[in-house]
């Protein structure tokens, strides 16, 4: 280090020791800022594991297989003991419904959002005159900026009931082939309504990324298709989509992560079903994130502290799911990239 600095000063570029010291400070600061996200994640994970451990030990495998989630009788003097851990009488921490609810709602949301985003972007980029596109971008960003509580309100007051009245009865006829689509359709609070709202929330994320991707597709590649007489739709299918497939996957993972962690809107629209799996796609349900918010108040009144540990445990599961989807997304993208098509690379 010394040596390098000396050499630099001797080049006569005006680098004196004072500047080098500034350099060093700047470099240290940069290193620190680069480390902050890593440290934050490690600290968070460690803290979550730490406070989840008692509940993890108490519930054991039941955490992933049981449907009953209760803090027990917080006022009883008797306690339930499991695996050597003491908890309020009758406490049980089965998180299966939350895990299923989290995964299902976000997966359905993704299934709705991806085709709509990609289709809309293709239509817009190919069809709408260039000068209107900035306005559309602003619109997309506004959509992304709407607070989720507003979505929740809209969903529960208007959108959910409207869907339940007009769309779901028709959808439930699909129940003949897809049992999960079978009625009763309920009043509009439940899995599908939440998934639709989640889809609206993640469409801006996926659409904005897709739009940037579509712009990177070489014009020359598209003209090859056009010059062969292909329609815009055929051109999109033959050239544009294969080019941006990886990027769409990456954007979908981003959107999925957002849907997994979304709390407020889901809490308001879920119908908040505890201790049972959703019976059909319209049924009330609950997610991990919504449950944590919902139950935190009462958890804090547990004198044994086990309720908070239990919420930490399901929070840890959410963290694991989010990290796993991110990782899986990366693996998929890497696999596709090293596969047949160097998609995304220009020609």
């Amino acid at each position, binding site marked *: 280090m010394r040596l390098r600095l000396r050499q630099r000063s001797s080049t006569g570029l005006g680098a004196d020791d004072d500047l080098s010291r500034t350099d060093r400070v700047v470099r240290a600061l940069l290193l620190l800022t680069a480390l902050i996200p890593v440290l934050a994640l490690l600290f968070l994970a460690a803290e979550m594991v730490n406070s989840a451990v008692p509940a993890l030990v108490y519930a054991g495998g039941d955490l992933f297989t049981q449907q009953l989630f209760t803090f027990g009788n917080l006022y009883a003097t008797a306690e339930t003991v499991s695996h050597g851990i003491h908890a309020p009488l009758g406490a049980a921490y089965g998180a299966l419904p939350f895990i299923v609810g989290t995964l299902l709602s976000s997966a359905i949301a993704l299934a709705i959002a991806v085709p709509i985003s990609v289709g809309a972007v293709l239509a817009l980029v190919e069809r709408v*005159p*260039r000068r209107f596109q900035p306005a559309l971008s602003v619109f997309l960003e506004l959509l992304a900026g709407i607070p989720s509580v507003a979505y929740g309100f809209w969903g529960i007051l208007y959108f959910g009931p409207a869907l339940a009245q007009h769309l779901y009865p028709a959808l439930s006829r699909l129940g003949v082939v897809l049992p999960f689509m079978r009625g009763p359709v309920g009043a509009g609070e439940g899995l599908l309504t939440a998934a639709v709202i989640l889809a609206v929330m993640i469409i801006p994320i996926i659409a904005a990324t897709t739009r940037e991707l579509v712009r990177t597709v*070489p014009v*020359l*590649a598209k*003209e*090859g*298709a*056009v*010059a*062969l*007489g*292909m*329609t815009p739709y*055929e051109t999109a299918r*033959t*050239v544009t989509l*294969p*080019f941006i497939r990886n990027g769409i996957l990456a954007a979908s993972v981003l959107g999925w992560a957002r849907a997994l962690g979304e709390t407020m809107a889901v809490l308001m629209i879920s119908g908040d079903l505890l201790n049972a799996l959703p019976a059909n796609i319209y049924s009330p349900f609950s997610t991990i994130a919504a449950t944590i918010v919902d139950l935190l108040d009462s958890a804090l009144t547990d004198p044994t502290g086990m309720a908070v540990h239990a919420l930490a445990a399901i929070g840890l599961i959410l963290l694991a799911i989010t990290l796993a989807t991110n990782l899986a997304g990366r693996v998929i993208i890497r696999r596709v990239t090293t596969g*047949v*098509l*160097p*998609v995304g*690379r220009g*020609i």
Partner: protein
Amino acid sequence: MVASAAALGVRPATHATQTAGPGMTVEDLRVRFDAREVLHGISAAFARGRITALIGPTGCGKTTLLRSLNRLHDGRPGARISGRVRLGEEDVYDARTNVRELRRRIGMLFQRPNPFPQSIRENVALAARIHGLWSRAEVPERTEKVLREVGLWDAVRDRLSSAPFALSGGQQQLLCLARALAVEPEVLLLDEPTSSLDPGSMSRIEELIAALRERMTVIIVTHNLQQAARVADEVCVLLDGSLVEQAPAAAFFRGPSDERSRAYVEGRIG
């Protein structure tokens, strides 16, 4: 110095065969991009069954002219085209023209290879399938036939299902040619098709083009005068958006009759 015809290797022009499909003509073709006119009233005939070389300095409008022939400017907002373009007797810009079919009949090869991000087989077969020329069952056989025709079969027979991007630039361009030939065009537009290729690939493509003359009308843009002399039957010289000379290749390379095209050929312009 004007290169002599012999030095440039001019072959005597062969005459069109009866099966060669229609030629193309343009009359008073004007192309404007926004406020700027790029082609100022071009009239030319691209005779059936012949190879016409379109030459001229960079920016003179060769690509613009070529793309007017298959209506590739349609997607460019602000492009205004007037005058007549005909394929045989048909008006290319007539409102009733089926653009899809028109572009099938007029194939195009671009300056750089632009294969689809699809398998090699699909690169060849997709458009033919879409236009309903090949049935699904015919695909393997006809794909092979077209790939053999461009001399690519042996290089790709073992990797028909993989992507074309591992092929060399020359092979990719041959694949694009195969893709264009698969839909049985009547006219072939070539925009500097060999400018990004090595000499070997270049002469390979030139041979193919020469052989295609039997079946279709060929228009080739090139900056390479030797290439024009080698393959062309006709030469059109474009300067600054105007056609200054159209002449049989042999006569042209013996000595351009127009003073401006003489200046271009001698390297005094562009």
